[in-house]
């Protein structure tokens, strides 16, 4: 029998602190949609997605209602689109993107990931076609998300791909200039891309996965922040160790909810349950901010000395609680610091407290990288590439996933304010110091070799 205080504390989490399931992502292998003819390929792709994912939204809503927990986002992640595009040209890449967009709309899901190229050791023609089609794909579709893996622990950093994607990002920005470069928010450049990540824009279905699976992203930072505040208000002598413990317990509870919903959705859809991603993903909503947690931990200005340590503690405590709650932890499972999507982080940038270099330092100890950062539209492609290279190096050397999602905003300069709307929030354009000073380095190209730590056998 449940105790009354247990029921009351859960009710408080659910209804006052907005506990939710952030995303239920159906991962789907679409390799069997390959066909020689473009029309046939697209028909097979659409039919497969609609038949497998047609019930996703309704199922999530019904199961969410049974437990009184909203499932905020329902999404799709397919196997890398380059598999079915092998042997096809750029036109097919565009048609496939449009097919994905329509199929996602038919299923009622807001985003579909997997317009993905994995180029950490080299690039096929299909990879090149996918990357080069991105300006047109991301400007002519609304639901398609893309990711490009340019580095890995085992392969090092493919600097040719890094340089190429630097230019592609600028081209996407130009192609979506009427939306302030928003197309770039739908592309993530990775090192060590996870194969089971449920979060967008980087979700795709990787190698070694089943035909389909359900992956879960747990609730956001609001619940953790409320728990910490409640603990602090209770008074008494508190140490950072006590606060880490509170985060751990909250993470346990949040993860349990995610797995409960995920397993039931998976069973209803008749697909295996995949993983729970423990990542704390903020939204622009007030109170759903990682920045607020950092402030609650006593850092008055996010970006001040101590910020990296606070993020490290938070990231670790979340993992410990989550790992005890579930044996199926996967994806990125860290703390996200996407600047425009987190109102407190965005404010810290606007106030001049948080700069690019400090964000980079923070990403050494958390997930996932330089995320949703608006930069001046006149930034050189080589500088974008060099920022990516730095972040990739952190991932490769530290054996973790890192990523970059930069949004050059055409016509904007440092300090300007841009509004992306909805979940993507708003941001102040961040100053990029030493812009243009890395050109020669990037132009060498080739591959930065895999680090000595990769020789683990």
């Amino acid at each position, binding site marked *: *029998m*449940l*105790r*009354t205080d*247990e*029921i*009351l*504390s*859960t*009710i408080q*989490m*659910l*209804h006052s602190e907005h506990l939710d399931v952030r995303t239920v992502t159906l991962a789907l292998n679409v390799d069997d949609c390959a066909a020689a003819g473009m029309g046939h390929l697209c028909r097979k792709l659409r039919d497969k997605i609609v038949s497998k994912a047609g019930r996703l939204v309704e199922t999530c809503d*019904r199961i969410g*209602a*049974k*437990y*009184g*927990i909203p499932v905020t986002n329902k999404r799709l992640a397919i196997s890398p689109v380059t598999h079915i595009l092998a042997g096809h040209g750029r036109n097919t890449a565009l048609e496939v993107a449009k097919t994905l967009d329509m199929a996602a709309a038919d299923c009622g899901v807001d985003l579909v990931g997997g317009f993905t190229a994995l180029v950490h050791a080299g690039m096929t023609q299909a990879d090149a076609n996918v990357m080069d089609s991105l300006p047109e794909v991301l400007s002519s579709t609304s639901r398609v998300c893309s990711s490009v893996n340019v580095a890995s622990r085992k392969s090092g950093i493919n600097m040719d791909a890094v340089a190429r994607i630097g230019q592609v990002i600028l081209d996407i920005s130009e192609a979506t200039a009427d939306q302030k470069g928003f197309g770039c928010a739908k592309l993530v450049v990775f090192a060590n891309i996870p194969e089971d990540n449920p979060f967008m824009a980087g979700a795709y279905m990787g190698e070694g996965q089943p035909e389909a699976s359900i992956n879960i992203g747990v609730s956001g930072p609001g619940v953790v922040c409320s728990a910490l505040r409640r603990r602090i208000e209770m008074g008494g002598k508190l140490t950072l160790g006590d606060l880490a413990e509170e985060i751990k317990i909250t993470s346990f*509870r949040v993860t*349990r*909810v995610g*797995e*409960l919903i995920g*397993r*039931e959705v998976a*069973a*209803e859809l008749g697909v295996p349950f995949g993983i729970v991603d423990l990542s704390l993903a903020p939204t622009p909503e007030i109170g759903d901010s990682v920045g607020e947690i950092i402030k609650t931990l006593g850092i008055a200005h996010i970006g001040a000395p101590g910020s990296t340590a606070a993020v490290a503690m938070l990231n670790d405590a979340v993992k410990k609680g989550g790992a005890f709650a579930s044996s199926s932890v996967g994806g990125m499972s860290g703390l996200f610091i996407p600047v425009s999507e987190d109102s407190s982080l965005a404010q810290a940038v606007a106030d001049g407290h948080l700069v690019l270099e400090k964000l980079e330092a923070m990403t050494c100890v958390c997930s996932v990288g330089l995320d949703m950062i608006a930069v001046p539209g006149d930034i050189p492609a080589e500088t974008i590439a060099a920022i990516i290279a730095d972040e990739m190096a952190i991932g490769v050397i530290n054996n973790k996933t890192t990523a970059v999602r930069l949004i050059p905003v055409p016509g904007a300069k440092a300090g300007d304010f841009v509004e992306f709307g909805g979940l993507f929030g708003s941001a102040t354009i961040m100053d990029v110091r030493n812009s243009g000073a890395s050109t020669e380095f990037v132009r060498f190209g080739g591959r930065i070799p895999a680090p000595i730590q990769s020789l683990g056998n």
Partner: protein
Amino acid sequence: MTVRTRSRAFVLNVISSDHPGIVAQVTHEIRGMGGNIEACSQTVLGGFFTLIMIVRFQKDITQEALVGHLRGPESEHRGFQVTVLPARAGAPVRDTRDVETFVVTATGKDKPGVIMRFSQYLSDKDINIVDLYGDKKGDEFVLITQVEVPTHWSVDMIQADLEEMGREEGFDVRFQHENVFVATNQLRLPHHSEA
């Protein structure tokens, strides 16, 4: 109540104002009569103590004798209100195979008749209340019930009915499967109702 019923097993209920020593006194009397306690539960509500027990004796005794022992001699003034019923073997136990446990929570401005209205609805649907808690703090009343819902009922419909009833009574009502409370509070895994 026919107080002269003879039996070996009884369910007994003791109510008293709360103070230390009640359980010690009650169990002392039971032991003295050769009884063994097979199950018990107690709670304190608003300063009042209540205890329910299943007790088995080695030989038949009467309800009257048991009540008399528990109340104690007139001179001691224990102040216990005691009720005793024979606990017959094979008493009907509800079949829990075709039910799932849900939790109903309702909060709102206190007024008479709220529990009556909800419990009447649950009773009409053959939904068994297995645990009930209510507490008034200031003007606010919190009601929490754990209920066994026959699986043939649609969760959506019951949810809609209870929420509508809540709106009419000025209460915020929620109807949620117990697994979410198990998942967030207990180390044991929830039973996955993998439909």
